[in-house]
């Protein structure tokens, strides 16, 4: 049955300027596939977690430039779209073991963050709706922890970095910030160390050995009688 027979409403979209009619209600990603595109770039997890399908678009003659993830944005009539499948930026190398967990460490590796003019374009363009500028400004004010928290949901799609007049590569900055926080500034889990010591001392060795040789019937008994923590 064709779409006309099923009475699916079609919308006109413009993929890099070229018009295609696609069923309404599809995501940009599925609409592009419907139109005949087979993705190599510009498509990753298809679930909003990987940042591969960053897309910019305008609608009709609205002057505004919108951003979104192709896998998480529904097509609209008159959408003019293009994907940004790659952001050119070489990742600086550092040895996390040798760094001090301070904002000045981050500034020394990414000095361009001081060029931030607080225009807020990054925040406005973020498809995850993160407070990107606040995170950068927190760093400039020396607050590494706040920058780590504000940037946690970043999926590194890179749209902010393409839009930034100060040419900051935000997602790389935030990656370093979060690692410094996770490694140095959050307290270590003591119960974890204790368990590791127990394992190293061989506390579970014998019993685990025994379990690997146990019959299914015996294991079943253990499984079905185990106490469940609620």
């Amino acid at each position, binding site marked *: 049955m064709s779409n006309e027979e099923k009475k699916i409403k079609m919308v006109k979209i413009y993929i890099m300027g070229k018009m295609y009619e696609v069923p309404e209600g*599809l995501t940009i990603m599925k609409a592009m*596939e*419907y*139109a*005949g595109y*087979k*993705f*190599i*770039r510009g*498509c*990753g*997890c*298809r*679930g*909003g*977690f*990987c940042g*591969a399908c960053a897309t910019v678009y305008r609608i009709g003659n609205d002057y505004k430039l919108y951003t979104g993830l192709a896998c*998480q*944005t*529904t097509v609209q009539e008159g959408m003019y779209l293009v994907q940004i499948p790659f952001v050119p930026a070489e*990742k600086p*190398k*550092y*040895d*996390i073991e040798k760094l001090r967990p301070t904002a000045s460490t981050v500034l020394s590796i990414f000095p361009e963050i001081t060029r931030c003019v607080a225009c807020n374009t990054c925040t406005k363009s973020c498809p*995850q709706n993160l407070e990107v500028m606040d995170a950068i400004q927190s760093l400039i004010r020396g607050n590494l922890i706040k920058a*780590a928290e504000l940037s*946690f*949901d970043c999926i*590194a799609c890179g749209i902010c970095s393409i839009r930034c007049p100060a040419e900051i590569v935000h997602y790389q900055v935030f990656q370093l910030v*979060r690692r*410094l926080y*996770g*490694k*140095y500034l*959050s*307290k*270590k*889990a*003591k*119960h*974890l*160390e204790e368990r*590791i010591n127990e394992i190293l001392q061989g506390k*579970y060795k014998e*019993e*685990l*050995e025994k*379990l690997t*040789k*146990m019959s*299914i019937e015996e*294991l*079943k008994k253990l*499984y079905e009688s*185990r*106490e*469940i*923590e609620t």
Partner: protein
Amino acid sequence: MTYESTYSEEMRRSIEKVEETRDRRLKEAFPRISPEEKDKLLKEWHPDYRPEGKRPLKIGPSKGLIVPHEVADLIEAYPLIDPSNIDLSKIDYDVDILIIGGGGAGASAALWANNSGIPADRILIATKLRFGDANTKMAQGGIQAADRPNDSPILHFIDVMGGGHYANKPELVKTLVENAPFIIKWLEDLGVMFDKDEEGNMIELSGGGTCRKRLHACKDYTGLEIMRVLMDEVLNRGIRVVEFSPAVELLTEPDTGRVTGAVLWNLETKEYRIARGKAVILTTGGFGRLHIQNFPTTNHYGATMDGVVMAYRVGARLRDLDATQYHPTGAAYPEQIVGLLVTEKVRGLGAQLVNADGEQFIYPLEPRDVVAAAIIRECYGRNKGVITPTGMRGVWLDTPMIEMIHGEGTIKKSLAAIYRMFSRFGIDPTKEPVLVFPTLHYMNGGVEINVNAQVLNGRGEPILGFFAAGEVCGGVHGKNRLMGNSLLEVTVFGRIAGISAAKYVQNVEPGKLSLKHVNRYVEMLKEAKIPPTRKSPILLPEYRGEKVLSRAISLFAI
């Protein structure tokens, strides 16, 4: 701004019932299922137990193994390349360790090979799409490790075996559970931001089928956080990564069967490249994009089972591929996100599963296969599902309960990804429940390995120079994986694969390269009278519109 629901009228009427019963249900614990009821439920309603969905393999070291048709179709298929067209005399990448697959297992293997003394420039990660494009990144809920005082590796072991229906390879389970706390420590030291309290204690939750609170999480972006830290470290060390270059066939030494490299294919320029490694580690992931039994999937675009196909051609033994994991709670509404994952952490935080009448029908934290079967029964056996405007059925996952149990703001804080996913389409999970139905999630089985991550042949002996880790492998999870054990598997066995391969390459010279095993495989296919219509690996799924495909033609030979 007041909140306006985007649910249909019929769905909203059902939500009213969910709201009416909510206060009562908050105090109500649905009884756990008995072993007998569990067996009956699975046999009657779990998709794995439908014999018409599967068939025995006709050829190869695991001939006779029952697998889904979609898997058999790719195993019983001809190679993409004609070996006689491939020039193996020019080696483009010559390394000590070749890692095929750039997800969590591949990155862990690379780091531990490097930690074991292999220089960064002697390691190569070849990956089909971008580095880090993998199911690892999409894992939301958490990673298991028995590290709280009331827990132990013993209990973790018992949970894994019971959840896997005792079909697991016990020594792999032992390796998994006793390495788990070390892996969490390693990740913590690399700088992964785990959810912790003010004292630094890990905040841990229950998962389906776990008898203790053992799920370590990074909000509901656990896999993303782990993957990006591993990637950052791999790049910092200068380990070589070649992207958009999937392996399309492994290379072997004719006399010994040792795996010595791979034919890579540049997806963009269409040229092939020869990679030689003294050892090869396979970390290519699973098969969600094969849409077993037409289910939607939570999986990454590249999850097309390429690794299993290639490994089988060099003689690897397969196991447990008859068991497919359907995650109980895939989004069932709205249409744009059907099949996407709604993490088990939602149930870990107290949200119940309820039917169209607002009543519970299963204890929400049974193992995944049990919950999935119960949801299918509720929708198709008892007709108590909610029907969406496009005709899809589902049950409610009562998310507003989380806010009532843990306080307002919990969803935005602990389930940021889920909140974001639904609110993008006009649904606020803090105020209204979300509709769910099982979705294809995980390849429980795969190539068989031993505790050193060596791939085994049909006789159960290690194939020389060949290692594997992660979802491409079978045996760790038996017939059903528990939540939080896949992130654990990729890191535990990725690490072991890296260490084992590093040890192996110390005493060997680079091997000879040949595709003779491919010729032999083709002979087997012909002998079994398998028609040359199917080719594999498929590398990417086909989603182009039918209308376009019906008129697509190829005008040039290349």
